[in-house]
């Protein structure tokens, strides 16, 4: 009986077992995986509330939040609900384990629907998408935001399959898939990539099931309409958001980004799936492990087998389509690499909005991996090939089930950064004090930093500032103040009257001075922090509320005449000015 039923449940058991191994080897009670530029909401109830409004003013003094980095409303709801029941470290692990499992299992489901002939090759395809070296190499940043976008491909693939068979079930899968991508990191490019993936899948089914061309177009219209209707709540706001986003894109040297992203995408690396320029460099043991030519070269086994099959069966239109798309994806993925690398640069320059795909290896890479996994599920027929393929995948994905997926980083300069962190009590106390304040004011974090990712010495941390996701009040970021010239007054950190006058004019009620920043964060943190402290202590603008380990908290002083009912402090959020000054700026 068991032997009869086992094959039916084998896929779920295999992916479930790997996910459980991942969970058990990575979970550490009370610790959160925190690192990188995407962060994790430390106070999801606050973060969620802040994301519920079209005017998102927790950063700078307002960004119209059509969508933005970390604008993952659906994911925030899930994290919030999980936190109602579990400890934050548990809920993070449940979330990551669930997503990890889903990345393999949903891929398997899609492949088994698309080509139900061989269960083993479908399992192989799922394992390839779940555990391939490119993704494991990028996972050093514990990033549920990215995984959501990653899972969007197989889930929407399932939707595309059902559109023909059972239209409304297809729309249901597409709806969940598109909501998943919405929460993903860098969601605009991934949406383009996912819809492109869906169109390719529709064409594939169109060819294999001999659906006429007109119907294929109706299917594509259906999936695009489903995407628009599911995501209209933020998509409709994009028009104005791009005032910000467009300006940011204009300041970036997109050609430089594209060249940097493509630096590894030569033909050998693309065949061995080592095309992703790991953000970790050589700073993790896994990235060093993959630098070995012969180890990463093992992955060439896959294209050798499937290309031989695809070329042999090229006369079959379905197979020809798979191969042509594979080649087109290679061309897009290689970005600025020769040959014809200039074409990508020209597209970046002249095709409107193409610059959102400024990192071709990362953006097209995800689709490339998914397409390869799909090809594997169709072309790997022999048991021996499948067993070798599974062995290579499992061998090279060892960090996933040995507790090293989010590993600590050691740089050549001797710096060490921990992946799992306990947010220090001092940050929690400071956040609690600020959050208790009912007066509408802003929070400024000092000193100014050179990067939006900061380094904290005391906890060997590198990533987004902890307080960013813990404070209810609008936060003025201390990074890139030149962005729109609004906060140039922050350059007057030696002149207390000037600084205080402007800070109060911008409703800054709280100042957090962080003494924990490492040298990368500021030019000379020790001197700079001392200067700021001297400046703040020298004047009448702000008073120190307290010291919380490495944090000093300041609040705007207020002045009042006991006989008078009027007080002086920061400028209120809304007020009627007593006097008007007009300045002509030369």
């Amino acid at each position, binding site marked *: 009986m068991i032997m009869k039923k086992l094959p039916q449940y084998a896929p779920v058991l295999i992916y479930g077992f790997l996910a459980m191994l991942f969970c058990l080897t990575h979970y550490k009670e009370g610790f959160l995986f925190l690192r990188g530029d995407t962060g994790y909401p430390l106070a999801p109830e606050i973060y969620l509330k*802040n994301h519920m*409004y*079209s005017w*998102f*003013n927790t950063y700078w003094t307002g960004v*119209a939040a059509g969508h933005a980095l970390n604008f993952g409303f659906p994911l925030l709801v899930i994290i919030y609900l999980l936190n109602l029941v579990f400890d934050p470290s548990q809920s993070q692990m449940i979330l990551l384990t669930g997503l990890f499992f889903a990345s393999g299992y949903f891929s398997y489901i899609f492949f088994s629907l698309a080509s139900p002939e061989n269960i083993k090759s479908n399992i192989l395809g799922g394992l390839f998408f779940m555990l391939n070296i490119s993704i494991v190499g990028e996972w050093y940043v514990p990033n549920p935001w990215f995984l959501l976008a990653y899972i969007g491909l197989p889930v929407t693939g399932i939707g595309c399959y059902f559109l023909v068979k*059972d*239209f*409304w*079930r297809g729309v*249901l899968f597409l*709806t969940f898939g598109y909501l998943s991508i919405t929460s993903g990191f860098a969601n*605009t490019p991934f*949406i*383009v990539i996912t819809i*492109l993936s869906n169109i390719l899948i529709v064409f594939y089914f169109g060819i294999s099931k001999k659906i006429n061309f007109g119907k294929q177009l109706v299917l*594509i219209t259906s999936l695009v309409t489903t995407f628009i*209707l599911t995501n*209209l*709540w933020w998509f*409709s*706001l994009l*028009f*104005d958001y*791009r*005032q*910000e986003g*467009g300006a940011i894109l204009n300041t970036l040297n997109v050609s430089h980004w594209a060249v940097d992203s493509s630096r590894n995408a030569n033909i050998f690396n693309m065949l061995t799936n080592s095309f992703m320029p790991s953000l970790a460099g050589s700073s993790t043991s896994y990235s060093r492990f993959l630098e070995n030519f012969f180890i990463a070269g093992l992955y060439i086994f896959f294209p050798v087998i499937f290309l031989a099959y695809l070329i042999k069966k090229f006369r079959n*239109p379905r197979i*020809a*389509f798979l191969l042509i798309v594979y080649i087109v994806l290679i061309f897009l993925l290689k970005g600025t690499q020769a040959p014809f690398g200039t074409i990508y640069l020209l597209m970046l320059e002249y095709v409107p*909005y193409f610059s959102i795909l400024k990192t071709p290896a990362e953006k097209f890479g995800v689709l490339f991996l998914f397409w390869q996994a799909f090809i594997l599920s169709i072309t790997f027929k022999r048991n021996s090939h499948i067993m070798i393929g599974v062995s290579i995948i499992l061998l090279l994905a060892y960090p996933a089930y040995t507790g090293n997926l989010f590993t600590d980083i050691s740089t050549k300069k001797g710096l060490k950064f921990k992946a799992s962190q306990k947010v220090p009590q001092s940050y929690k106390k400071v956040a609690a004090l600020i959050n208790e304040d*009912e007066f*509408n004011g802003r929070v400024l974090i000092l000193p100014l930093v050179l990067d939006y990712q900061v380094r904290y010495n005391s906890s060997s941390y590198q990533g987004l500032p902890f307080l960013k996701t813990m404070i209810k009040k*609008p936060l003025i970021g201390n990074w890139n103040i030149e962005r729109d*010239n609004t906060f*140039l007054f922050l350059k*007057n950190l030696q002149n207390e009257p*000037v600084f205080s006058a*402007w800070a109060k*004019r*911008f409703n800054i009620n709280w100042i957090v001075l962080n003494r924990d920043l490492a040298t990368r964060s500021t030019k000379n943190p020790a001197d700079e922090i001392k200067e700021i402290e001297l400046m703040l202590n020298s004047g009448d603008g702000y008073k120190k509320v307290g010291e919380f380990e490495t944090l000093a908290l300041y609040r705007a002083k*207020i002045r*009042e005449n006991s006989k008078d*009912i009027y007080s002086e*402090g*920061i*400028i*209120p*959020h*809304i*007020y*009627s*000015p*007593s006097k*008007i*000054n007009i*300045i*002509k*700026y030369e």
Partner: protein
Amino acid sequence: MQFSKKTIGNSLLLFFLLIFLWVPIASGKQSVIPAPAAKLVSDMGLGEIVYFLDQLDEKKRSILVEFLREYDDSESPILEYMRLSPDKYYLNVHNFDSNFIINFSEKFHKNWEIYVVKPHGKKLLSINNSNSQKNIQSANVSDYKADLKKIRIFLQKGWLSFQTEGHQESFISKVFYNSIQNENLPRGKIFETFGETSLPEKYHLTGNYLSNSWLISADFIKKNYPKKIIEGIEGGYEVGFIIEFSHKKLFIISLAVSGLFVLIVIVVNLFKVRNDSISLWFRGV
């Protein structure tokens, strides 16, 4: 040959679709704000506002000049406001009889709009003990809260309004630069500005480098919104405003459409509609 044609045809179609798929997003230029005249401005009182002519176009400059002719800086009204959400604020203006300015410290954006309404909430002659107790207890913690004595003065002057039902115990600030933050104003309704016309954009200027500033002409308000104005306790007039980021309406409508769509999809799937006409058509049955 047939399949090659089909494959090439599909590839060409894909190419054209790709071109049209790029999200049709509007690009916009970030307004470049001139570098601050920091020292000059720091000598000004905090209650004063600064307009930089470089940030105003010709039309707005002339409106500002016109406005100043009727402006009396000794007659600043008292403002009472509450933040309902990051994109919506309630505001009552007390004791106005001449032109005044409303300065709202969010980054200037044309989508911030201001609507004239009746004053929010109702006046109370006295305040219940729980409110006063809360303010007194909290006074030690926060310097920004008004104490009982001040609240009584505010009440006498008619500067405070309260929601008609429910809690009347929330935060009330001291008067900073003629402005009180009063968290006891009514909560309002989501749809209240639907179909309403906001004040013309020409009166919406950039003030203090950054913020949204509206020039409010007393005559304009009296002439166009006579029903929204009431007489104040200490003379002058009172009027209410709603400041809202206009995206909010679009957001609510879009959210309703998305929510409804997801609901329909779930309901249809719950009822297990199989072999529906669309699926049959796709399958060519």
